[in-house]
C-alpha cells in the first residue's frame, strides 16, 4: 500500500518506489531504497514524518503516495 495510508508508530518495509525519475532518485539517494525499514511517526494533515535508520524526514503527501510499503514483520 502507498505510504500515505500507513499508520503511525508502525514499522514498514519499502516494497518499491513509483513515479518519475526526479523524485525517485531523490528518495534513493536519501537512503530510501526497496527493503529499507521505516517507521511512520506522523501521518495526519500535511506532510508525513518517517524515521529511517534513526534519521527523520518530512515527506509531502504527493511524494509519500509514490512509496509503496508493507508492514514489517
Amino acid at each position, binding site marked *: 500500500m502507498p505510504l500515505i495510508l500507513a499508520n503511525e508508530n508502525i514499522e514498514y518495509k519499502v516494497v518499491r518506489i513509483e513515479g518519475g525519475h526526479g523524485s525517485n532518485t531523490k528518495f534513493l*539517494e536519501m*537512503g530510501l531504497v526497496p527493503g529499507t525499514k521505516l517507521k511512520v511517526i506522523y501521518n495526519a494533515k500535511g506532510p508525513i514524518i518517517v524515521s529511517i535508520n*534513526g534519521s527523520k524526514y518530512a515527506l509531502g503527501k504527493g511524494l509519500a503516495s509514490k512509496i509503496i510499503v508493507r508492514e514489517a514483520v
Partner: protein
Amino acid sequence: MKSFNIALIGNPNVGKSAIFNELTGASAHVGNWPGVTVEKKVGKFTYLDTEINVVDLPGIYSLSADSIDERIARDYIVKQKPDLVVCIADSTNLVRNLYLFVLLKELGAKTLLALNMIDLVKNKLEIDDAKLSQSLKTRIVKTSATKKIGIDKLKEAIFDELHHAEEELFVDYGSDIERSIEKIKNLLEDIDLPQNKRFLAVKLLEQDAAITEELKKLQKDNIVENALLEINNLEKIYPDLQTEIIEKRYALIEGTVKNTTKHLVSIEDRLTLSDKIDKIVTNRYLGIPIFAIAMLIVFEATFKLGGFFAGYIEQSFGWFGEASAQYIHNPVLQSFVKDGLIGGVGTVIVFLPNILILFLFLSFLEDVGYMARAAFVMDKLMHSIGLPGRAFIPLILGFGCNVPAIMATRTIADEKDRLLTILINPFISCTARLPIYVLLTSIFFSNKNPALIIFSLYTLGIIVAVASAKLFRSTIPKLKGKVSFLIMELPIYRLPTVRALALHSWEKTREFLKKAGTIILFGVILVWLLSSLPFGVEYASEKSYVGVLGKFFAPILSPVGFGFWQAAVALFFGLLAKETVVGTMGTLFGGEDKLSSTLPHLMDPLSAYAFMVMSLLYIPCLATIGVIYRETSSFKWTAFSVAYSLFIGWVSAFLIYQIGSIF
C-alpha cells in the same frame, strides 16, 4: 609558501559549516557562486609551511545534476580540481552519509573522510575506523566541531593526504552492468572530458542530463545513442536500471557499515529526546500555536529591541548632522553633509540592530533544528497559496521590515519558490508604513473606527501578496510549475555554540551593510541632489527638481484622488523609507501640526484612503529594492518588482477611488 586548494563537502545538517569555521577561523569570507545566488564560503589556514585554501561546497545528498547545489559541487570538483575533497559525514547516520562519499570516489576525486558529530554516538555506536578506512580506501578522522574534538587531527590528515596518491574504490555493479560500463568506457577512450571515464560510463547508464548534454556539445551523439542501446538491453534484465545502480552502491555501503560498526543500544533508545520534542512541536494541534509563539517572540524582539537601539541611532545621527552643520558654513556643502551624507548613512545604519537581532534569532532556530519543523508545520497552509512551508517565515517578518524578510528567503532551497517569495514580500505592510496610516486616519477617520481602517490596509497587503503569488505562478514562464515537493530531513536537536551563532548572524549582517548599503546610500544622495538643485532653491521646495517632478507627476495622480504636487513629492521621498512620506508632507505644508487643517482642503476621506493604499503598494523603499537586487542578482527582476508594484499600487488606488466615488 606552498599552497593547496581543498573543498569541504557533505549532506545538509552534518556540521559542515562548523568544521569550516573551526578550520578557517577569521579568514573566512562569503560570496556567491558565479551566476547563482547560492552562497560560497572560502577561507584558509596554514599548516607547517603550507597554505591551505578551503572552499565550503553546498550541502547535498548526491552528485546527480538535478539541483543547482549539486551541479555547483560537481562542477567545482570536476573543473576546479581541488587537491583534496574532505567529505564530512554525520556519524549518527553513516549509511546515508557514505552514499555521497562513494559517489565522490567514483567521480575520481581525492578524498578524506571526516566522521563528524562523533560525540553523539559515544556509548551508542562503536566504529572500527581502521577497518572502515580499509574498506572505503580512505583516511578517516573522527571529529566533533561543536565539542572541538579532532580538529587538529583533521588539519594534520589534510596535510598528509595532500602528499599521498588516491586509492580507487570499486563499486561492483554485477556482471551484466559491468559489461555495458566496459563497452561505453571504450567508446569514451579519446573523449576530452575531465571526469573519470568509468564515472562517465555509469552516469550515462543513469541517463544523467548534464553529461548527455556535454557529449552532445562535443558532437558525440553516437556515444549517447550507444548508451541508450545498452540501457535498453539492460532493462530486459533490470526493469528499473537507475534504481538498480543506486541499490548496488547502497549494498556496498550497508555491507561495509555492518562489518565495521556495532550498535551498543537499540534503535528505539537512540533518538528519544529528539522524538519527545518532536511529539510536541509537530503535534497536529500544538504545532501551529507553538510556531506562532516562537515567531511572536522573534518578531517582538527584533522590532522592539531593535527599535529601541534604532531610536538611539537615529537620534545620534540627527545630533551628529546638526553638530556638523555648525562647522560648515557653505550652505550647499552643509546641506550635502547633513541631509545627504549623514542622513543617508543614518538611513542604512538604522536598520542594523533589527537585522542583527533578527539573524541572531533565526540562526538560533535554524542551528537548533527547529526551522525544519516550522516549515513542516506550515507546509499545508502555504501550499494552498502556491508556496512552500519555508516561505511563511519571510512573509511574517515582512510585517516588521521587508529588508531582513527578503534576506530570510535564503532558507528556501528551490530557486523558483524563493524568487516568488521575494517578489511578493514588499506587499506585506512593514512598520515604516504605519506612521502614514496613523496620520491620515487620525485626520480623516477619527470618528469612523480608525483601527478597522488600518486593519483593512494590512489585509489588503496580504490579499495582493497572495493574489500576485498565484498570478506569477500561472503566468510567468520562469516561475511556472508546481510548488517544490517537500522532502527534507528533520535534524536531531542540538544546542549551537555561541561562536557559531555570532558568526552566522554577523556574516549576514555584514553582507547587508556592504551590498544593500551602497545602493541605499546612492539613492539617498540622488534624492538630496534633486531636492537641492537648481542651486539657490529652498530644499525640496516647489522650484527644486523634486518640486518640478512632483508637478509633472501630479496629473497622473489626479485620477486616483490626490493630484497635488505635494502628494507626488511625498510619495517620491517615500522611496527613501516609507515613514518619510509623513515627514515630507509636514515639511511641504509648513509643519506636521498644520496638516490636520490643510489636508482636508485637498483630500476627502476617500482620496485619503486611496493615498494610503498607494503608500502601501507602490514601489518598495530603496532599502528593499537594494536587497531585492542583492538577493536575486538580477536587474531584470528588480526592475520587474518596481514596475509591477507601481502598477498595482496605482490600479488599486484608482479602483478604490473611482468605485468609491460612485456611492
